[in-house]
C-alpha cells in the first residue's frame, strides 16, 4: 500500500467510471448507426467493473472486461436508406437511449463520488501531517 493509499484506491474508481462514461458516450453517439442486414449491428459497450484483489483487501477496482450488446440489433423498415436490403430493412443497434442516460447519471455520480473521496482523503492526510503541532 503506497503512502497515500486512499487516494490511489479512489483513483482506480475514477478511472473505471471515466471508462464507463466513455463507453456510454460511444453508445449514444452510435445510437443511429445503421448497418446492412447482412452485417452485425453496432454492439453497445458495457464496462464490467471488477474488484482488484490485494493482501489487505483495499486494491480498488478495475475494468474487468467489456460486455457487448446484441449483434442482431433490431430490423427497421427504411426502404429509402442506402443500406436497405431488397425487403427495405436495415439493422439498427439495440440501444435504449433512456437506459444509456440513466447509466450516464450513475457513472457521473460515481466519478464525482470518487473525486470527493480523494478530497476528503487529502484533508485526512493533511491532518495526519499536522499531527502533534499544537
Amino acid at each position, binding site marked *: 500500500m503506497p*503512502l*497515500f493509499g486512499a*487516494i*490511489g484506491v*479512489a*483513483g482506480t474508481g*475514477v*478511472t473505471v467510471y*471515466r471508462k464507463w462514461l466513455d463507453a456510454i458516450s460511444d453508445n449514444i453517439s452510435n445510437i443511429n448507426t445503421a448497418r446492412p442486414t447482412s452485417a452485425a449491428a453496432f454492439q453497445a459497450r458495457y464496462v464490467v467493473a471488477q474488484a482488484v484483489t490485494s493482501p489487505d483487501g483495499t486494491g480498488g477496482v478495475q475494468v474487468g472486461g467489456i460486455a457487448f450488446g446484441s449483434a442482431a440489433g433490431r430490423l427497421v423498415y427504411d426502404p429509402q436508406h442506402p443500406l436497405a436490403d431488397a425487403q427495405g430493412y436495415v439493422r439498427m443497434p439495440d440501444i435504449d437511449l433512456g437506459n444509456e442516460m440513466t447509466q450516464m447519471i450513475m457513472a457521473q455520480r460515481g466519478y464525482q463520488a470518487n473525486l470527493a473521496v*480523494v478530497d476528503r482523503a*487529502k484533508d485526512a*492526510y*493533511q491532518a495526519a*501531517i*499536522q499531527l502533534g*503541532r499544537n
Partner: protein
Amino acid sequence: MSDVTVAAIHSALNGLALRQRVIADNIANINTPGYHAKKVGFESALASAVSGGTGAAGADVQTSLEPTRLDGNNVNLDQETLSNVDTGLRYQLMLRAMDNEFGLVRDSLRTA
C-alpha cells in the same frame, strides 16, 4: 537527527518539486498533438543512496510509454490530477520532516 536524514529529505523535496513541475507541464500539454507525458522518479535512487550512507540523489525524468490517443498524445488527466494531489501531500510531509529535524536541534539549544 542525522546528516543523512537531512540530505535525504532535501533530495526528496527536490524530486517532489520537479515532479510537481512536470505534472503541470503534462497538464498544460493535455491537447498538444504528439506530446508524450513525462514521469519523474527519484525514490529508488534515493533508497540506494541512503543505504550507501549518503542522502544525496538526483531525480530522473522519463517519457511515458503509455498508449497514445488518436492525436499521438498520452497524457492521462485523471492520473495527473491524482499524482498532483499525492505529490503535494508528500511535499508537505517532507517539509514537516525537515522542520522536525531542525526543531530537534533548536530544542536542544534551548537553555531556559
